[in-house]
């Protein structure tokens, strides 16, 4: 269980790397999706025991996956709309979002 938890944290860290260090809006959204997958993996890994997983963990994992992916889909649509407005996916060029 502990090994899977650590690997889930690694997955979250990979996603965080994308969110913190990338400037491309779509890459940032992909990073968030990887974080969602990592969190779902962590929730499931905590409830895993032998060949079965606790039902609570499965439910929470399912909610994390479906909810997280829905939000990511909305973020992708927003990214495309922003691209149409600004002509770039570089988040630093989107100055008018300030304030």
């Amino acid at each position, binding site marked *: 269980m502990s090994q*899977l938890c*650590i690997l889930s944290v690694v997955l979250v860290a*990979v*996603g965080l790397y994308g969110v*913190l*260090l*990338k400037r491309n809006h779509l890459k940032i959204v992909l990073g968030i999706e*990887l974080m969602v997958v990592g969190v779902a993996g962590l929730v499931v890994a905590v409830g895993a025991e032998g060949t079965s997983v606790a039902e609570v963990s499965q439910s929470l*994992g399912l909610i994390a996956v479906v909810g997280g992916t829905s939000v990511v889909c909305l973020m992708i649509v927003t990214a495309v709309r922003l691209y149409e407005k600004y002509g770039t996916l570089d988040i630093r060029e989107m100055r008018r979002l300030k304030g």
Partner: protein
Amino acid sequence: MESTVSVLFVLIAIAGVAALELRQARSSLAAIGVALGLFAVAMFVLGAVEVGIGMIVAAVALLLVLRWAAAHTETNDSVPAFAEGAGLVFALLSLVAFVVVALVVVRGNLPLAVAQLGGEEGGHVGLLREGLVIVTAVAAAWAMLRKKGRKDQ
């Protein structure tokens, strides 16, 4: 079985890095598809069938939306790969700090570890947790106050 799932998780992490680093939109899309598919397989192997099925459905929807997004934006990523200057240093420090704290908490070496979060109210764990909440609230208030007055130029 756990070793099989561990190998799958490592492959997911590699596919994730590939999705973030590849410059072509199609390659990036394929890599994230592989990562999500492997995660679904890992869930099936682990016995979490509901999560696996949910992941497959969510992955299909996400890949369709990503394909649409790739068709309506740039096919090649022309944005510079990394942030620059002080922001880069701050981001790297944040990333390292997150990994260290998360690993320490997951391994159960802190009083704030997952297994001990249900500590008695009024005990040192409860006080630490409440202090953390107050610090977070103050940070949020500061961030909101800082935004006030910064208008579009």
